[in-house]
């Protein structure tokens, strides 16, 4: 369907634009509804202005097993304020109505999608202007239904790969992937670390051998210096917890960090 390819295309275009600028794409994660839904509505257009290439909106879940303390707290806070999956999708529709054009991807756990109904949820996402989904607790073996639904509606179901994913499995994941490959930079949960993981270059090279899709590194990358290092290896860098932490300080704090990240990630000639 013609309209349906929009999600995948918008994501591909964002990475292509960054590549044409000879830089890695800056992917920003925000927990939707944290510190409030109004804040998210303000923050996303600001992110676009400040130079983010793609935004992941975290759909809060009661039991976020892949997340560290910062995003756990944000999820809990967002839930306390009544943020539901439907509200997150409405938020995307509002952002689109307000003129936000950058790719928007929802990142959330599988149970809320199941509870909504896989087909209904994906349809609502497409109608609202969501471009893709990232579901951290849904490995490809279990993703059949969601994969089919997102394919039918032209959304990218972006798979995660980990440093301990064997090469053969990595190739299999890459084969069915759309949008980009999300490379979890290190074992463990989301959240800042003192330094980047060892062996990132080899890991990214392994993923390159398996896929022609853009590769984005995320989990544990928080400072501009770390983003700069990661940007030398991958096609995109995801910054999550560090942004979520700043979100409480207000939009100016977030904007400052995003501009710093963009500057740090610019490639020296």
């Amino acid at each position, binding site marked *: 369907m013609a309209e349906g390819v929009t999600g995948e295309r918008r994501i591909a275009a964002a990475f292509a634009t960054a590549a044409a600028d000879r830089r890695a794409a800056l992917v920003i994660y925000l927990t939707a509804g944290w510190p409030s839904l109004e804040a998210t509505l303000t923050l996303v257009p600001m992110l676009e202005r400040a130079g983010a290439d793609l935004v992941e909106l975290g759909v809060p879940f009661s039991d976020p097993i892949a997340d560290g303390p910062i995003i756990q707290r944000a999820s809990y806070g967002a839930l306390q304020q009544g943020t539901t999956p439907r509200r997150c999708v409405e938020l995307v529709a509002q952002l689109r109505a307000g003129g936000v054009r950058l790719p928007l991807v929802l990142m959330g756990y599988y149970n*809320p999608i199941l509870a909504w109904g896989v087909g209904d949820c994906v349809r609502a996402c497409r109608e609202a202007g969501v471009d893709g989904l990232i579901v951290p607790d849904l490995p490809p073996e279990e993703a059949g239904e969601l994969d089919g639904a997102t394919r039918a509606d032209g959304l990218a179901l972006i798979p995660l790969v980990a440093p301990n994913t064997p090469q053969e499995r990595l190739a299999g994941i890459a084969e069915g992937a759309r949008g980009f490959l999300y490379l979890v930079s290190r074992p463990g*949960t989301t959240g800042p670390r003192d330094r980047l993981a060892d062996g990132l270059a080899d890991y990214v090279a392994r993923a390159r051998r398996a896929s022609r899709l853009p590769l984005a590194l995320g989990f544990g990358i928080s400072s501009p210096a770390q983003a700069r290092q990661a940007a030398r290896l991958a096609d995109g860098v995801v910054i999550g917890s560090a942004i979520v932490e700043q979100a409480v300080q207000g939009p100016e704090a977030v904007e400052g960090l995003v501009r710093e990240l963009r500057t740090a990630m610019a490639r020296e000639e």
Partner: protein
Amino acid sequence: MQMKPMVEACTLPDARGYYGAYGGRFVPETLIAPLEELAAAYAEAQADAGFRVELAHLLHTYAGRPTPLYLARRLTAHAGGARIYLKREDLAHTGAHKINNALGQGLLARRMGKRRVIAETGAGQHGVATATVCALLGLECTVYMGTADMARQAPNVERMRLLGAEVRGVDGGSRTLKDAINEALRDWASSYEDTYYLLGSALGPHPYPLMVRDLQSCIGREARDQLLAAEGRLPDVAVACVGGGSNAIGLFHAFRDDPVVLVGVEAGGQGIETGRHAARFGDPRRGRPGVLHGTRSYLLQDEHGQVAETFSISAGLDYPAVGPEHAYLREIGRARYTSVRDDEALAAFRLLARVEGIIPALESAHAVAEALKLAPTMDPGGIVLVNLSGRGDKDLAHVFSLFRGAQREAADG
């Protein structure tokens, strides 16, 4: 009650860890490789006679198996009706059936060359069993426990520490078993290289439900043999409480092909209608198939798919999901599930102490309470087999404070 043979169930789970529509492996990619490693190591261990012999030896000489099967005459007389037999898992080392699983998985951890073991615990029984096995095998041990559970099961916290384990309080969410499992999974996602996650119930991602069933199925096998020896026949009904469902699946598995009615008892808390309970099967409004902790099963959740808070007097049953094989057994009609309220469990707790001199765990008291309902409806020639999954020492402080509270209320009223 209708009973169906369970021929197909014997071959389950399938290769992907499914029991019909339930089970599977819903985990972050980082945990896939560790789970594959675990499944392969477990299959290899099972095929190794040396492993089986060592486990059997420890179960006998260290854990005290076989545990007795006991005809509770005074309880039977009190109930009036079928004879009630108790499978005395409360007499196993560390005071509950949890040691069966902990020994098996502890040996597996050592065999896999892991130096550190992590575990979650609700009532503390699995944490104590894991800490015990780690002391026995010389492994480092960290136990995650919700801070709400630490408060109501304080003696077990001290026991774990005495046994050399580090107890890490979990303050997230409802501060109970569910949150302890979240935190253990997070730990394992970064520590799997040298760390073994010793999951305590028949839940979680494949292969845990299978492994825990295998390691707990000695309960049912022994009870079946013991009852045949004592009575020359099988029970009419086998009853067990169901939190995650390890003691229940351990009891049920041996009877899967027998004409025995299997009854699982969930925590009814303050009553299904109050919404304050942990009855995944008993609350059709909020108990629906869902995904939590790596497995698809029945799950108490709100309309948006957020996991619901649960309530039970017993920490071990206070869990919003249930092992996937129970969802399957219920769906095919092989087992039925019912619930018992806090006050009914507490009454059974007191009664068993008074008429048999046995203080059960509050979890197990749920199964006793159900037996007290069933026995009077049956012929005196009938037999109800109850898995007395643990003893109640850990619950005394909590129960006494409840009694005192009730007395105060009565005085004030």
